[in-house]
């Protein structure tokens, strides 16, 4: 087997010849060579219930290219040791790869200071970190936290808990009928001057809506508030450059963007992190330890207590290299082509209700829908019996479900390796649902 350390992602057939393309700001570039990309993802090549797998649950978690799996395996086969401690060769290698991964994240985000990149277990932990370490010491009764009805529970519950601890008040940006945030309400909410932080998703996991986070950030910051962007979906499905967003905190997870589970990132501006208390205490986050007190390590280690997810960080960096070589704009454009095809087919089916923006250009690769007379769980079970994997339920976004008066939806979510033929398989299997439920 090839040694992963000497096996850059450029060996992948999908990326051959694409090196000079890179991301193309403002344009979609040439279409993806999806068949070549599929060859990079071993898991896709299997049958489920007698049919070739059609994996359309990418908003829950993405599949991993072989280079990511091999990077993790290679780390454990050759380099594994604890970081920042040992004076031996393996620890040196492990530390180098782990810190190298941090550098990959920093440059991918477009930030210069790797000390602003904090490893976490995922977006959820990153948001909890901010709610605790920043929120507990900066909010008091009467302050306001601005959220939206579009948020995943991971970007709601930590703020509700913070509000309960501090007496701060929760405000919400509401949704229009098409699943887009009503920005016209923003000036009225901000004019009181009490919004200290706004926490907004970049891309809705339930509807796929691409939110205008830069515009929201501009207005919130003009009124003196800070802005956290939940990039759990955004990092995977939309181009991200922190300087263009004009925000203060960015949280994302590795597993939704071809990386492993259990690793994610909080990016925050250095002066904010410097002024925040640690989130957890333990090894690696201290400078000096005395009997009655301790002092904290420099950034980013102040926020990284305990042995970190070293292989996870290395795997995530490999995933970023892989996605970068394909190009975020091209991936989004590909997803939008699949969304357009799906919406067109579903609009032609009787009894289907589509949720979210009518214009596929306002979405990442998510199509949420219901079918009259058939519960989403039954849709998912029947689709699974034909090898088509989708999600059915509230998608950890109960405020979205309430807004549109449903308990659950069926959701197909796409990624760079999905094909138009797979969209057709989805549509064909929805025909089976119709046959059974009539």
């Amino acid at each position, binding site marked *: 087997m090839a040694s992963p350390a000497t096996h850059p992602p450029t060996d992948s057939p999908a990326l051959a010849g694409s090196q000079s393309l890179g991301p193309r700001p403002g344009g979609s570039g040439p279409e993806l060579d999806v068949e070549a990309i599929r060859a990079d993802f071993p898991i896709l090549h299997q049958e489920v219930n007698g049919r070739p797998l059609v994996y359309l649950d990418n908003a829950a978690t993405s599949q991993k290219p072989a280079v990511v799996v091999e990077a993790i395996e290679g780390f454990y086969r050759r380099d594994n040791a604890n970081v920042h401690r040992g004076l031996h060769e393996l620890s040196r290698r492990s530390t180098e790869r782990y810190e190298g991964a941090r550098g990959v994240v920093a440059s991918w985000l477009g930030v210069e200071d790797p000390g602003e990149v904090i490893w976490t277990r995922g977006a959820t932990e990153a948001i909890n970190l901010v709610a605790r370490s920043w929120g507990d010491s900066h909010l008091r009764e009467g302050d306001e936290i601005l959220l939206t009805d579009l948020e995943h529970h991971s970007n709601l519950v930590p703020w509700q808990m913070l509000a309960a601890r501090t007496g701060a008040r929760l405000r919400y940006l509401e949704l229009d009928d098409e699943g887009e945030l009503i920005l016209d309400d923003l000036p009225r909410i901000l004019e009181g001057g009490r919004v200290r932080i706004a926490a907004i998703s970049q891309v809705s996991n339930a509807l796929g809506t691409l939110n205008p986070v830069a515009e929201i950030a501009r207005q919130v910051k003009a009124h003196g508030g800070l802005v956290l962007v939940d990039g759990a979906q955004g990092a995977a499905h939309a181009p991200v450059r922190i300087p263009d967003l004009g925000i203060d905190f960015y949280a994302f997870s590795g597993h939704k963007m071809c990386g492993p589970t259990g690793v994610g990132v909080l990016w925050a501006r250095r002066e904010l992190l410097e002024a925040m208390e640690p989130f957890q205490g333990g090894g690696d986050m201290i400078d000096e330890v005395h009997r009655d007190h301790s002092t904290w390590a420099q950034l980013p280690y102040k926020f990284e207590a305990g042995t970190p997810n070293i292989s996870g960080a290395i795997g995530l960096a490999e995933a970023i290299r892989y996605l970068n070589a394909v190009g975020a704009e091209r991936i989004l454009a590909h997803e939008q082509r699949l969304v357009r095809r799906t919406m067109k087919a579903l609009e032609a089916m009787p009894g289907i209700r589509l949720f979210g923006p009518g214009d596929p250009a306002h979405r990442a690769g998510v199509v949420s829908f219901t079918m009259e*007379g*058939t*519960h*989403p*769980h*039954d849709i998912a*079970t*029947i689709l699974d*019996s034909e090898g088509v994997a989708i999600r*059915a*339920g*509230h998608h950890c976004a*109960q405020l979205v*479900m309430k807004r549109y008066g449903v*308990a*659950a939806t069926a959701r197909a979510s796409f990624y760079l390796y999905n094909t138009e033929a797979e969209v057709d398989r989805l549509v064909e299997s929805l025909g*089976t649902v119709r046959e*059974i*439920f*009539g």
Partner: protein
Amino acid sequence: MKALYQQLILDHYRNPRNRGELEEDGSTVEIHVRNPTCGDEIRLQLRVEEDRIQDIKFLGDGCSISQAAVSMMTTILKGKELDEAFGVTRRFTGMMHGDEEAARDPALGNLRSLAGVSRFPVRVKCALLGFEALQEAMKKSRSREEG
């Protein structure tokens, strides 16, 4: 798939029996259960007199399996003694976990059409949701009698 979604199940899903509310008095108990991962919910009411289910009604929202199962359950349990109802619960739970002997028990009546659900582990909890409510309701009723 058609083995799972039998006509009887679809019929109870589309035309649920005993759906509605009982007029509350001293002999009614009510339990509300919810499956937090999928959002299915059932509100079950029993009227228990002399240890016998005199009347039973439910309101619910969820998939065909959860709603058909609770609908069938109500038709079988109306008029049964609580001990018999506990027995049906045990048999049905056994059937959901693959007990073939339980699946042949005529006491399960129409509920036997749900036997196929046992081959779909992620859906078993749907089928059992109504029985979860039933057990809670019967315990509540008994503890009230004893109290």
